[in-house]
């Protein structure tokens, strides 16, 4: 198993561009022979890959524990739905606003708790997630529809063409996913991306080297939250019914597990994690009653056998295994 994964990883690093183009072509062709149910499963996979990628910025790159990520997903969906239902703004136009609102909440919520670390941060984010859910359930300002949520949201309309079939939503998701992955790859190797990893590895050292850790961490939270908001708005556009359950703790846990089981800080890892947490359980409906138990077993076994995740980024793997990065072939002085 491990060898297979290593080989896959090597293959993926051989010619990144060809590999990526091939994947996109495959993703475009994949739903064509399938029926609507499987197309919806594919769409759901795409949705959670996007959520996983957004959380990956926070947990994977910056190393901050966020167990309330579903709150921003819900906030994005509610923003889109409220703008659409009350102000009749077309759904596609609400997307950027959902991103902005979710990112804004990300800023407001995380700004005061940024000094916390590890478990404490984890607990506060859980509490915030629950507060968002309860506020939506309790129907603050009387516009969120209480425990039933909101329904009859318009479907997205593109140049006068209403997206009804699952396959159109799948393609819409695919477009956003390609943009997301491109952006995140660029981000990973940017100055900001390197600063995130620096903070993750050693915050004090990063600060000493002149990295503004507060700003860097805030940016991770805002970008991650905003992107989760986008995923929420896309969800509202396909399902057309949203409820406070989107902000359930369970949702946050699933997103967290997608990132960690796949391999923190790794983009292919998010895909693998989503396959394990969402796609496979979805396809094995008969086993659904026992799904959570199997997920639990998988989580425990994974952490004991392969804590760096199924498809980890190289740097995280070396770090978790306590190994040194392969030395560059520079002979020591004098030898």
């Amino acid at each position, binding site marked *: 198993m491990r060898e297979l994964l290593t080989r896959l990883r090597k293959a993926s690093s051989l010619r990144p561009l060809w590999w990526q183009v091939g994947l996109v072509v495959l993703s475009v062709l994949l739903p064509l022979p399938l029926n609507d149910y499987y197309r919806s499963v594919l769409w759901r996979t795409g949705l959670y890959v996007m959520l996983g990628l957004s959380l990956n910025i926070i947990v994977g790159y910056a190393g901050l*524990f966020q167990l309330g990520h579903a709150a921003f997903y819900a906030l994005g969906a509610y923003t889109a739905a409220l703008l659409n239902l009350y102000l009749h703004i077309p759904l596609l136009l609400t997307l950027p606003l959902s991103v902005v609102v979710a990112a804004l909440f990300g800023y407001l919520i995380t700004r*005061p*708790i940024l*000094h*916390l*670390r*590890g*478990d*404490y941060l*984890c*607990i*506060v984010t*859980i*509490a*915030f997630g*629950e*507060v968002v859910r*309860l*506020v939506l359930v*309790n129907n603050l300002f009387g516009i969120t529809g209480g425990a039933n949520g909101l329904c009859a949201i318009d479907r997205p309309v593109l140049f006068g063409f209403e997206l009804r079939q699952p396959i159109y939503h799948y393609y819409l998701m695919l477009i956003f996913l390609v943009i997301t992955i491109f952006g995140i790859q660029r981000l990973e190797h940017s100055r900001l991306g390197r600063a995130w990893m620096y903070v993750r590895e050693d915050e004090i050292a990063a600060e000493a080297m002149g990295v503004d850790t507060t700003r860097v961490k805030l940016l991770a939270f805002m970008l991650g939250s905003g992107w989760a908001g986008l995923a929420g708005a896309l969800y509202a556009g396909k399902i057309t019914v949203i409820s406070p359950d989107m902000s359930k*703790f369970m949702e946050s*846990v699933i997103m*967290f*597990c997608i990132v*960690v*089981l796949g391999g*923190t800080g790794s983009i292919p890892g998010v895909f693998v994690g989503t396959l394990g947490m969402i796609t496979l359980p979805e396809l094995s409906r008969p086993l659904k*009653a*026992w*799904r*959570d*138990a199997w*997920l*639990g*077993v*998988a*989580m*425990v076994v*994974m*952490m*004991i056998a392969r*804590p760096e995740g199924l498809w980890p980024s190289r740097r995280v793997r070396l770090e*978790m295994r306590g190994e040194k990065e392969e030395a560059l072939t520079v002979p020591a002085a004098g030898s």
Partner: protein
Amino acid sequence: MQFIQQMINGITIGAFYSLVALGYTMVYGVLKLINFAHGDLFMWGAYLGLTGLNVLLALLAQASAWAILPVVIIVMVTVALAGVLVERVAYRPLRTAGRLAPVISALGVAFILESLARNVYGASWKTYPAGITPAGGITIAGSVRVSVMQIVVLAASFLIMGALYLFVQRTRIGTAMRAVSLDHDVSRLMGIDVDRIIAIVFVALYYGSFDFTLGWVFGLKAFIAAILGGIGNVPGAMLGGMLLGIIETLGSGYISPQWKDVIAYVILIIILIVRPTGLLGERVAEKL
């Protein structure tokens, strides 16, 4: 009068929070791990208690308050053993694996326990058979009513908390536990069997599981209580639990029951922003 009544109700709920919070605080003190499975084990205690009571009542063919006693003992032993098992299987192999891995593993255990409970007992609410709990009560100062059950709960909680406090402060094992919570590696050097101590913590903490409220929310509340008092601190957990119970009851009495949980979470957030060490906490420098 309403105020005193609310206070008494709040203290009763607070006593439960304190008991569960003690479990969190002791595990966290020793393992530095948020034991997400704690609330679920607690829930299992309630379900097992229900099954035990039903079986016993069927045998006795007559409702009796004394039926509770053997059931409580059996449930305590079973759940404590389950706790030890969880520690063995899911936490011990991860002792050296950093902080992320044990958190995921604990969540995994919580998933397993919850899913098992749902499949075995079904998703509907379960109530304990009537006629078990002593009815009646006393009325003091005109209109304030204290039920016999409340008195029993309070007496039992204080007894358990007192015993636990003495255990941690006075006995050899308790001292060893406190040493471990201060410094893992050094105490290992000092010849203390860390693994055994941790197992004993898991046994000790389930001396409280005989209520039947649901696992997750209750677990989170208890954790809030533990943080409120100062995590890793036994008297702190008691104080935190009581305070949380009182504030929650007053909040739902005077504001609205709907916002009860929100109040608890907001308290947690404020405490962590303003004073992350909790009310009685000493030093948690590495978490700041």
